């Protein structure tokens, strides 16, 4: 019974990816186009391209920058979002300015970052942070704004201290939205990891992909894209494990049959 249940679960989870891979495989099987190499060719190049050295020299530094940028984005987005969400006047004051910066493409901002942060890892982390902070910020603001009034009143009545209010009411109350934003930000951070490595980079996963693209090593480029996707899946699994812990109460509540 459990074996059957597991089998079913596996079929549901693995079904669509399997179908898509098959479609990709057969659609490109006889391809002669340089830009659409057969999937088999791409997979053949995967091992030699990534597993022989590049994992440590390119993928690891990228992931470290990603982690740093994402962590900063989380911290900044939540902090700023809490402040902006808590005081409508602060929101009115800052929102247009923030929206202004939000609409500017990161590639255009890079020269300014270089002016202030140089061309090292700091700049790349900054790019990742600045790009991925927005979903967290926006969602935190909305999450803080929509905290239940009765809950707010309860906290006021029992004269919660500022810190307790912040943690027990505001942050936890907004946490479902913060997590939504964090989930969004994760994939954006990966994208910005690639983009940041298009400027002043000497190594990295994104850098490698761009290099492959420029030197017309198209199967390698595809293998890089696949690797990016796999990293996305892996990180989202980790994310979901964290989410299940942090939002256990919320998921229980929403699933509760009452």
């Amino acid at each position, binding site marked *: 019974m459990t074996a059957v249940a597991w089998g079913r679960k596996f079929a549901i989870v693995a079904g669509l990816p399997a179908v898509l891979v098959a479609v990709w495989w057969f659609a490109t099987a006889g391809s002669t186009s340089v830009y659409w190499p057969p999937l088999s060719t791409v997979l053949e190049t995967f091992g030699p391209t990534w597993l022989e050295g590049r994992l440590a020299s390119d993928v690891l530094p990228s992931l470290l920058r990603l982690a740093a940028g994402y962590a900063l984005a989380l911290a900044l987005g939540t902090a700023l979002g809490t402040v902006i969400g808590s005081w409508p006047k602060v929101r009115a004051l800052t929102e247009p300015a923030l929206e202004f910066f939000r609409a500017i493409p990161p590639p255009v901002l890079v020269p300014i970052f270089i002016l202030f942060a140089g061309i090292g890892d700091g700049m790349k982390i900054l790019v990742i942070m600045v790009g991925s902070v927005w979903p967290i910020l926006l969602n935190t603001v909305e999450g803080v704004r929509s905290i239940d009034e009765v809950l707010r009143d*309860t906290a006021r009545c029992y*004269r919660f201290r500022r810190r307790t209010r912040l943690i027990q009411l505001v942050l936890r109350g907004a946490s479902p939205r913060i997590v939504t934003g964090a989930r969004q930000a994760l994939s954006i951070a990966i994208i910005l990891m690639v983009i940041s490595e298009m400027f002043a980079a000497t190594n990295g996963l994104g850098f490698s992909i761009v290099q492959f693209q420029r030197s017309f090593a198209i199967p390698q480029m595809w293998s890089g894209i696949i690797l990016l996707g796999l990293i996305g899946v892996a990180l989202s699994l980790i994310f979901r494990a964290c989410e299940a812990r942090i939002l256990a109460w919320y998921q229980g509540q929403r699933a509760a049959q009452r």
Partner: protein
Amino acid sequence: MSTLETASAPPPQDTTMDHDAHTTPLLDVTGLRKVFAGANRAVEALQEVTFTVSRGELMCLVGPSGCGKTTLLRCVSGLLAPSAGAVTLNGAPVTEPPRGMAVVFQEYGRSLFPWLTAWQNVELPLKEKKVPRDERKRLVTEALDAVGLTDSRNAHPWELSGGMQQRVAIARAVAYEPQVLLMDEPFAAVDAQTRGELEDLVRALWQRLGVTVLFVTHDIDEAVYLGQRVVVLSASPTVVLDDVAITLPGDRDQITTRSLPQFAELRAAIYELVQRAKNGYRPQPDTERPA
């Protein structure tokens, strides 16, 4: 209304209560008015409400549904700014929730933190009050025990039945040992038996700690059984219709007190008042409302 008198002085019959500060006015509500101005409708929830509550008094508030009891309680607790009039507590105007006050909200379900267990919900305000750990543990255990939730202490609010949620909210207020306790229909979701027990719990707490209680209920028996005074509100736009002193002995008991003829009398009188309130009766502005 021959047996009733509009009274704000403590009833002489009340003998067990012996708080020395009993006659000091603690809470003073003067000319309170609240208008909710929505987009498509403006509601005058409170027109002009005036009363005082002495220190250590247990006052019940009854009135038709939608007359503004919750609104009044929210103004008194400093959660809602009135449109006009003033609330003073201990001589100081109330603009934010004062120290040492606990509120049991009518929306009990929404007033519990869904991310905390029953135990944690009760404990959190005590932590805020900086009660030492051991004392805190004792208070929470006692309070949960008193409301019969010892077994469910580790459940989250959404794992509890409606009545259990309400009892957690009550336990939280009780464990807090407040000086002023505001309760908004706190027993609406519990069964008759539990209700009686909780009524006695509130009275015991009140007598033990000398806490001042403002108790909103729509159960007139409950109001008579619990209170020293019952303030009856009119239908919306709301004013105070009458202020009835409950001339029952201070030592009350579910069986004997409720079977006193005086209880039935008071009950009937207040029922009559509420019924009239509901049907639109209002005091004459000239004679009963301050200019």
